[in-house]
């Protein structure tokens, strides 16, 4: 009998979990926790974020009292976020309406733990399609070869670029949830890349046309982008009440997404992926040795 509650929040990558949940409900399979999943890209939660005038935001608090929103923003801007990609002084923040809704859901569902599968396509932004000026970078410690005859971007610069993208996307959400709840948080990365270029070309989804125009990047670069992305998230949440979720071994074949988990699109996992991951996350949160919802 389920005794724990797990709340999941995320964007497109949460869809695999949602399908898995429905499958489990249909087949009567019980997990270690009752799950509630909130798809943040649904219209009811839009817009998730907006760009604010930083000067105006600060000057609206002449007393100097900083809201949590401003505190998070200050932490982000001073923490290597390179002031986001937006026009100077107009960084991206979550909307107040969105934050209020999320707080309401957390209060209403009162979960023992939360998992986040927010955004997650940042690494695809960087590496899915072959850039007109092909490039690669050396990722220390993984022994993945650097392509020959292409521009080699220094690792430090590539990491900064990916960090900035993360800060503007997935970490925008993580910072909010990290402040909004005392419950343990499990940060789930997106699936690793699909190695097979033919699969991507056959199911280009929204990349239709673009994939043909630019071509798909070599798998080595796409793998490195995913590994770098995960490493950044792992580093950022270190020492907080958040656990970065390492994907279980069956997910991988040669560092890429195993074929049985491919969705008919270029980036997402299928229902079997969702089943594997939902069980994995509930095991991590509520299995033997887990904190089981103790306060941070």
């Amino acid at each position: 009998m389920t005794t724990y509650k797990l709340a999941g929040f995320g964007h497109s990558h949460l869809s695999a979990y949602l399908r898995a949940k429905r499958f489990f409900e249909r087949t009567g399979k019980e997990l270690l926790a009752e799950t509630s999943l909130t798809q943040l890209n649904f219209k009811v939660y839009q817009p998730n974020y907006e760009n604010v005038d930083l000067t105006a935001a600060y000057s609206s608090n002449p007393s100097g009292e900083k809201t949590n929103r401003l505190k998070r923003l200050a932490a982000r801007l001073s923490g290597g976020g390179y002031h986001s990609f937006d026009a100077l002084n107009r960084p991206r923040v979550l909307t107040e309406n969105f934050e209020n809704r999320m707080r309401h859901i957390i209060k209403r569902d009162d979960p023992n733990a939360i998992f986040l599968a927010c955004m997650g396509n940042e690494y695809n932004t960087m590496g899915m399609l072959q850039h007109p000026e092909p490039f690669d970078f050396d990722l220390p410690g993984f022994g993945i070869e650097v392509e020959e005859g292409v521009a080699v971007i220094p690792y430090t610069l590539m990491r900064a670029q990916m960090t900035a993208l993360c800060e503007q996307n997935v970490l925008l959400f993580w910072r909010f949830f990290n402040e909004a709840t005392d419950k343990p948080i499990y940060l789930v990365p997106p699936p690793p890349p699909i190695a097979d270029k033919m699969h991507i070309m056959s199911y280009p989804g929204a990349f239709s046309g673009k994939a043909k125009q630019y071509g798909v990047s070599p798998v080595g670069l796409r793998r490195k982008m995913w590994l770098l992305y995960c490493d950044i998230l792992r580093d950022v949440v270190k020492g907080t009440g958040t656990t970065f979720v390492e994907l279980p071994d069956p997910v991988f074949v040669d560092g890429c997404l195993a074929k049985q988990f491919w969705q008919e699109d270029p980036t997402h996992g299928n229902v079997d992926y969702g089943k594997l991951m939902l069980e994995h996350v509930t095991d991590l949160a509520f299995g033997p040795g887990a904190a089981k919802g103790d306060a941070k």
Partner: protein
Amino acid sequence: MSKRTNPYSGLPAHCFWSRTHRGKDIAEIDPVVKGQFTLKPKMKIATAGSCFAQHIAKHLQGQGYNYFVTEKAHPIIADQVARAFGYGVFSARYGNLYTTRQLLQLARRAYGEFQPKEDIWEVEGGFIDPFRPNIQPAPFASREEFDAAREVHFAAVRKMIEEADVFVFTFGLTESWVSKEDDAVFPLAPGVAGGEFDEKRHGFKNFTVSEVVADFRDFIALMRAKNPKVKVLMTVSPVPLIATAREDTSVITATAYSKSVLRVACEELQMMEKDVFYFPSYEVITGNYTRGAYYGADLREVEAEGVAHVMSLFMRHYTKDGGSAPASDKPVDSFQEDVQKALDIICDEEMIERAVK
């Protein structure tokens, strides 16, 4: 009989103190008098020097002039990140070149004519370039990355030297720290942003007018040997020293010395060298007619109004119509935009709903 009764009679208004500023708003005061050449939109304009040169670069870029950047980040890197890593701040990624000796040594290093003995600093997490220690927020991750970046950098410096049509240099400081082994000049004292200060190996140097002039002339000779037609525009940074290393001297006095030396050096260089000109941004900001209005609360940083005044004079005297260059028909790189649009669609809820059915 001549109408002129003394050498001042009949001279233009700008020659007279009272007539230069009386009844004028400070933003209208113009000590430039006359530009020495006209910038054309296609001219490659390179910049180097202290912080203030960055304003010129940024403004010219904003006005559509051909700001010549020879060391660019790959287009996959966002502008904000690239700038944090020193790309596009100056024409190549050399960071602030505060002294003319630094400029000269950089050029010589780029052509393999000088190889400093203290050439790399190892720190926790990687390696720092002693000659551009603040070029990026984190050290170079490996020796290989450091070496590759330096190779790219030197090639960019050579390209800038060989291809620039106009070279704008802002003279910043006279005080510097040098290696006692080979006189290599560090932009910051070892120990400040990497390395370790060792008084046996490192010494303080305060350059004189003749040294500043000689170094800049040597640089111009080197540049002209490869690029005979380049025009050089000199400015002096109006930003006071943040600190002096001279224990017996006030930073106020040290600033006066430093700026005076640099200003005199520019005057001498202008007289000695062909196609080398001085632009008086220093006077625009520091002139007492401003009553300090162009400095921020710390009396050091230059306010945006001051920069705007300098740049409006620059455009007035050095461009044909005093304004923007004609719009370029250069195609915009749309790759990132295309990818982002596709991914936005991927995250669209219709697609998710379709997926969960």
